[in-house]
């Protein structure tokens, strides 16, 4: 896939930290939430980053590709239009559903890992791909529960999804860590099972433990344990890019810079 190789280290662009993102040293690429952008009215900051040659990748949160409802092609078209507006080499969303029966959950809900659910997901992904101008990457989500009667592990589920749709994978190592903490999944097994040659890039994010539950908040510091999962991934494959997601409770520029530096250190360690 042209243009996606060697993205480097990036950060999720958010309007609250636009000047920070522009000023931070070592931001090689950014991700924008596609639903927050309006075609024809790109934020000045995003335009400035594009002029500097910083790749801008649209990330969607509302396609609900894992849902039984028909894919809303207006949302797909908007994602594609954002990709064209920013000249992105790819777009992404999640392996999840956010709507069911006309109701919006407001959360990225995990998909039951059954053959039937996979068939639905595959059909939706193929429909989306046909209506997108660039390749689609799909991200593993954090789950607080597992649907009963799962027939596949998460890694097997994603591997089969890639096999049948030729999509790319966006691996969120913070979500892998959250799932390990909350539902006992094994990040190493996940990494063993997915086709790493289809890795588009990686997400890293912070979270917080509340009682027995680890919350993938994107509003707290990145835990060393999450960087350990990144380290494990990097020991297997050189990821084309690694992106820090921060959505709230933004720390100082210095703290953000040091999180990016910590991510880069893990990546560089394996590039030797």
């Amino acid at each position, binding site marked *: 896939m042209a243009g996606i190789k060697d993205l480097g280290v990036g950060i999720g662009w958010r309007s609250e930290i636009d000047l*920070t993102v522009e000023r931070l040293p070592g931001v090689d690429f950014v991700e924008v939430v596609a639903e927050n952008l309006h075609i024809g009215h790109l934020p*000045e900051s995003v335009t400035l980053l594009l002029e500097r040659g910083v790749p801008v990748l649209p990330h969607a949160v509302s396609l609900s590709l894992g849902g039984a409802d028909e894919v809303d092609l207006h949302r797909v078209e908007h994602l594609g239009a954002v990709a064209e507006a920013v000249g992105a080499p790819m777009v992404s969303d999640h392996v999840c559903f956010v709507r069911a029966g006309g109701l919006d959950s407001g959360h990225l809900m995990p998909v039951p890992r059954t053959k039937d659910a996979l068939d639905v997901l595959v059909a939706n992904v193929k429909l989306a791909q046909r209506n997108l101008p660039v390749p689609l990457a799909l991200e593993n989500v954090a789950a607080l529960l597992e649907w009963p009667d799962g027939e596949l592990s998460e890694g097997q589920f994603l591997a089969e999804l890639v096999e049948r749709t030729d999509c790319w994978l966006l691996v969120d190592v913070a979500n892998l860590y959250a799932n390990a903490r909350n539902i006992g999944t094994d990040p190493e097994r996940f990494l063993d099972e997915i086709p790493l040659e289809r890795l588009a890039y990686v997400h890293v994010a912070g979270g917080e433990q509340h009682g027995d539950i680890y919350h993938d908040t994107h509003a707290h510091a990145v835990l060393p344990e999450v960087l350990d999962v990144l380290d494990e991934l990097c020991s297997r494959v050189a990821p084309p890019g690694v992106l820090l997601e921060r959505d709230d409770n*933004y720390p100082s*520029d210095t703290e953000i810079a040091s999180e990016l530096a910590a991510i880069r250190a893990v990546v560089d360690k394996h590039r030797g």
Partner: protein
Amino acid sequence: MTKQTDTQGAWLSAEEAGFLTAGPGRAAEAVLARLIDQGLLRVSRDGLVSAVHQDGEGATTSVEARMLSFARNPVQFDAIVLATRNCTEVAQLYRQLLSRELMRVPHRRHDGRWFSLAVAGVAVVLGFVSPVFLVAAAIALGFFVWQNGSGPITQAGREALSQVQASDRVHVVALYGFDGRFRGKDVGELFDFPRRVVRTVPRRPARARRRSIWNGGGCGSSSSCGSSGCAGSSSSCGGGSGCGGGGGGD
């Protein structure tokens, strides 16, 4: 907070220098500048100011703590200046400047100045009757000039302010305001904000360094004198009535 001193030992923080230079709004601007400078406040391109820490961490003065509390949720650049300008902590800052005799309450001295002018006018008319009244007119006029010429800044305040240098961008804001000019450049450029962000702060007429609205030449002799009513009246400062008259950029 970095302080600068005069030869007589009157220490001025940037917020104090801002207050002496142009009133409570400028003090608020100086506080905003320092908190941004220290990475304790973040400004976005659309002019939203937000606190980096939710617990007020990093504040070194009560005004700074107040401004950080205002910015727990994102707030517009001009709104946070206005809110801080009107807060009780800035009123307290003013009282401290009074107690240190860097400022005085000007109203008392201004009381009756129009009476002096009226007396002078009547005396001039009576001067046609007897030249003695012309002497009285001169005295009354002199008294009027004296009353008008004294602003709320004391001699000690002026001396302290004269020692404050625009040695960093925080003090540049204190002395010239975010929307001012310094060494041929817009002060806002020192912070790399889009120009429209600092333009949201209401602008006061440019005035020369040291000829602040508080000193005799700037305030007492011009129509902008009404704004000195803030610093001159502690009851209006901090009472939410809008210290500084025209806006936050004073």
